[in-house]
């Protein structure tokens, strides 16, 4: 039996569900001290003086460090881009640029005492003018976000295919869509956290960091740069990580300061971000404002798309301007857009920085193109599924050159897919025809029903590389080590399935180890829906290589020229299972006989192989979503009646895990569309500092979903896999907006803002200019 393709149970769940997980906050080191930060209450200010005299006397306080302690360089820029005028955060900089930036840290014998200390630190600020809203930040005379920086513009992103202006002018039908997408928080259950410890007893100082991170090797490299030491002196380990969704991808000032203060104090130091800190300082995403246009033929074929958008990046660019770049390349999505132009302006504001959150710029892209198509369908009186059918890239057209440049700077080519089949499956699974009929009569009543669909694609499985070391031990068990790091996605299961198949070994003989820079020399990390594709392929290649070596050695030891096979943890002669050698004995043989003996085997010592997989380009996953909503026209509340998703992730390693990933992504999409928004006031004060005000969907807000899979294997990797971690979040907001607009057709309400607040819906209905309708009563 092959494990790949099976719903193998996740190997970690028993441990995690019983509360035996080892997260940062579960790790204890002798002598450990606890940090709390003094954070700026002002969105833009110069720190004039920090008075720690009172705070030093607080019970339990061991040390206080602040902007006065040292001068640090700004954090390195992770993603340069040609037009990017990059400003990265400086640890303990003199000028603070958003509420929550650290100006001092209190180290104490407990977090309680550290917070007592924080309350006693006095900071004198010189207030500077600030701006939080991106349109305002781009106006003439707007306050400078960084006082030394004359412009608030961070970057301009341009895309051009064909002649979009000319084609638009020639188009017989032109529709527009203006939409603002609200800012959201990544909001993993486990917030960020870090434990750092130096060992100065050896020949050279060594730094050991436990971090709730998606990118342990990247952290290791940055520490090497910041502390001017070699990677060998640094070990970054991600223990169990309780979700991340992008928040644990960048390198933050706290990551530096905790490691720095551990060295200053000569003791282990830990910091666990609390929820307010998370909402204030961990990266946000989504906030973009689009003005888009689509030109079409009378029968609904796209001739041209143009889009101008603003993207907020907050005070810094912790992950470059990847998010708006992705948006600009993915607006055409699964559709044929012969002429396309896009201009994105990335704007600094005095707010928390923005960087990828699950979906990373793609939900915005899917929103723009799908809403334009719905607007066109309405004008042309076409069914919204039909207008999509007419514009989808056809299976015969792959590989499909979009004419765009991808985020890696190479021509953007879609590798594979079958979008018409996807849409067909979606309509069937979601009972599109039935719902179109069923919704009919109710539209003028208090409860109006609407149907929305959206299709989105996702560039997944990106480079540069991921490696895997696969080793067979003397007990015959197989250890798989990769540079990826799991935050709950189930790599321990899926990567083990791949290796188990290669060795025809039982699942429980395979052990996956991740997230430790000391276990494998290089790694990229887990983000951008890349692990199954890139680490998965590396595991496959390394396993195949090792398998070859084992067969060679077994043939030598069994003195057999006949074909050999692997089964039940042994290698045996095909047709003569008594002539066999176990994996364990092979490993033992390959380790050399005894100290001092000569090594005479034909294969190199050891039973281990390391291989890196370097993908040639992104593989494109696709998802089609259909949602049915009921809108209470009296209260404005939106209820989801039915949710269907059909998804193409190429070869499925573990369908149940894929389904779970999509379900999770859709839950996030529901939050983005209906509930979640980080709000600031005009100056940049956070208005949503707790889960009372920042509304995550709960189990009651997430409906049961129908999730089906279509599989067009990718030609770009040995597994045929495509990434899936983010995909659920991509078409979902767009499909929900479409459904709400459809429900409110009689009121002629257009949704130009997400999340769709009930208040906003109700106000739009009350203000509607539609005449031919019955205004809803209050009953």
């Amino acid at each position: 039996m092959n494990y790949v393709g099976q719903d193998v149970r996740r190997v970690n769940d028993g441990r995690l569900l019983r509360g035996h997980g080892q997260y940062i906050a579960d790790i204890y080191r002798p002598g450990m001290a606890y940090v709390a930060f003094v954070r700026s209450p002002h969105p833009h200010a110069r720190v004039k003086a920090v008075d720690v005299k009172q705070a030093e006397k607080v019970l339990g306080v061991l040390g206080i460090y602040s902007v006065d302690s040292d001068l640090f360089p700004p954090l390195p820029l992770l993603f340069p881009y040609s037009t990017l005028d990059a400003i990265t955060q400086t640890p303990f900089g003199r000028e603070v640029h958003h509420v929550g930036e650290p100006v001092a840290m209190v180290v104490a014998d407990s977090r309680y005492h550290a917070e007592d200390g924080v309350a006693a630190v006095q900071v004198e600020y010189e207030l500077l003018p600030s701006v939080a809203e991106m349109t305002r930040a781009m106006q003439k005379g707007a306050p400078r976000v960084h006082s030394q920086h004359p412009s608030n513009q961070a970057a301009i992103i341009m895309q051009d295919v064909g002649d979009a202006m000319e084609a638009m002018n020639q188009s017989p039908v032109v529709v527009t869509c203006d939409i603002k997408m609200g800012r959201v928080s990544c909001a993993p259950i486990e917030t960020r956290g870090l434990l750092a410890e130096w060992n100065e007893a050896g020949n050279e100082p060594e730094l050991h960091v436990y971090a709730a991170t998606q990118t342990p090797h990247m952290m290791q490299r940055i520490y090497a740069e910041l502390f001017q030491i070699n990677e060998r002196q640094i070990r970054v380990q991600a223990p169990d990580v309780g979700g991340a969704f992008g928040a644990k991808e960048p390198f933050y000032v706290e990551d530096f300061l905790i490691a720095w203060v551990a060295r200053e104090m000569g003791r282990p130091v830990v910091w666990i971000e609390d929820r307010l800190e998370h909402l204030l300082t961990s990266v946000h995403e989504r906030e973009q404002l689009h003005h888009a246009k689509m030109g079409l033929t009378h029968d609904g074929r796209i001739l041209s798309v143009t889009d101008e958008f603003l993207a907020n990046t907050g005070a810094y660019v912790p992950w470059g301007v990847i998010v708006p770049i992705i948006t600009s390349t993915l607006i055409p999505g699964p559709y044929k857009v012969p002429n396309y132009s896009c201009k994105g302006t990335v704007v600094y504001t005095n707010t928390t920085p923005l960087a990828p959150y699950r979906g990373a710029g793609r939900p915005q892209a899917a929103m723009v193109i799908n809403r334009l198509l719905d607007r066109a369908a309405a004008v042309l009186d076409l069914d919204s599924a039909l207008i999509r059918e007419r514009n989808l890239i056809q299976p015969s057209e792959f590989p499909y050159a979009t004419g765009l440049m991808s985020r890696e700077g190479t021509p953007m080519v879609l590798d594979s897919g079958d979008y018409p089949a996807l849409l067909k499956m979606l309509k069937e699974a979601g009972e599109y025809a039935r719902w179109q009929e069923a919704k009919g009569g109710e539209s003028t009543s208090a409860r109006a029903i609407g149907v929305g669909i959206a299709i989105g694609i996702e560039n997944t499985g990106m480079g540069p590389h991921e490696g895997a070391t696969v080793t067979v031990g003397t007990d015959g068990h197989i250890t798989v080590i990769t540079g990826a790091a799991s935050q709950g996605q189930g790599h321990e299961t899926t990567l083990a399935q791949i290796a188990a198949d290669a060795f025809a070994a039982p699942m429980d003989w395979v052990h996956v180890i991740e997230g430790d820079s000391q276990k494998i020399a290089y790694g990229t990390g887990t983000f951008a829906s890349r692990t199954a594709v890139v680490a998965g392929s590396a595991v496959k290649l390394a396993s195949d290589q090792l398998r070859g070596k084992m067969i060679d050695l077994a043939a030598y030891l069994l003195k057999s020229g006949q074909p050999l096979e692997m089964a039940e943890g042994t290698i045996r002669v095909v047709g003569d299972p008594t002539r066999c050698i176990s994996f364990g004995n092979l490993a033992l043989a390959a380790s050399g006989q005894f100290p001092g003996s000569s090594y005479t085997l034909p294969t190199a010592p050891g039973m281990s192989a390391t291989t890196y997989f370097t993908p040639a380009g992104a593989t494109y996953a696709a998802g089609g979503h259909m949602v049915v909503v009921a809108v209470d026209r009296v209260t404005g509340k939106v209820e989801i009646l039915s949710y269907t998703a059909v998804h193409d992730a190429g070869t499925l390693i573990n369908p149940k895990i894929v389904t779970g990933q999509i379900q999770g992504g859709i839950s996030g999409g529901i939050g983005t569309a209906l509930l979640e928004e980080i709000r600031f006031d005009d100056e940049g004060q956070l208005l949503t500092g707790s889960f009372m005000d920042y509304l995550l969907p709960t189990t009651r807000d997430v409906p049961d979903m129908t999730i089906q899979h279509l599989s067009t294997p990718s030609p770009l990797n040995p597994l045929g896999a495509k990434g899936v971690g983010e995909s659920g979040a991509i078409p979902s907001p767009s499909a929900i907006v479409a459904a709400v607009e459809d429900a409110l057709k009689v009121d002629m309400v257009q949704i130009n803002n997400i999340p769709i607040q009930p208040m906003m819906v109700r106000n739009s209905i009350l203000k509607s200019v539609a005449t031919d309708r019955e205004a809803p009563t209050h009953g």
Partner: protein
Amino acid sequence: MKPCAFQLYTPSTLEDALEALWELTEEGRSVKVLAGGQSLIPVLNMRLATPDVLIDLNELDSDLNFISPDTNHIKIGALTRHYQLETSPLISKNVPIITEAERLIGHVAIRSRGTLGGSLAHADPSAELPLVASLLNARMTLQSKHATRTIPAAEFFLAYLMTSMEPTEILTEITIPTLPGRSGQSIQEFALRHGDFAIAVAGAQVTMDEDGCISDARLTLGGVGGTPLDMSASLAPLVGSRPLPEDIERLMKEICQDLEPDGDIHADSAYRKDLAITLSTRALVDGLQKVKDS
């Protein structure tokens, strides 16, 4: 998000609790009593309150946790947990609006700890139980070391998160009238997510005479003022009539005219007012329907 240091005192009798509360308050120390902790603990963690001492009531079940019937009333101990009210057959039979209200409060974990007394003492104007207490004009028994007094809900809720309790008093018992004959109760609320505090909430009780005309109608609104707002006096036009939903809606529009709710990022003042009209109409219509159904 860690509280300041405080002392914790866990008395095992109500006398001890009252004694401690009196003595410590006299000494000028700031004291808070702790019931289910579902409102107080977050407030402490965010350092919005920094009491010197907490008096933990959780060992006082034998004194303060009970649901006992009386003629035309039910007496409920302040430490009775939400889930006990939610699942009590005595309550669902005699004060069905409490059962309905409980289902709208938070989530299971919150209802298994949070208490009736804590909910009333916290006096959140969006909370369901203060609304029900106002609607039915429940009577609150307040005890201190030296005195016991009983006051109606109307005199208990003073302003946003503020009651007429003295710092030396503990709320010990709530007396709630049972559902009269030919009557129906209803609570209608709008929250952004299930289990959230309401944006607006309306509670109603209607009684009919033998001819099917309304003989008594009561209405309280939450989330649209600093305390639950008793609107019953404005329902006089309904008494003696058999109103249609449209008639009720018209009256609700009229009586909600003067509300001036505070707005926030999720619901501005006008929207809350609009919801108040909808929810009060729905509550009265549903209340009437229940009488007809029974």
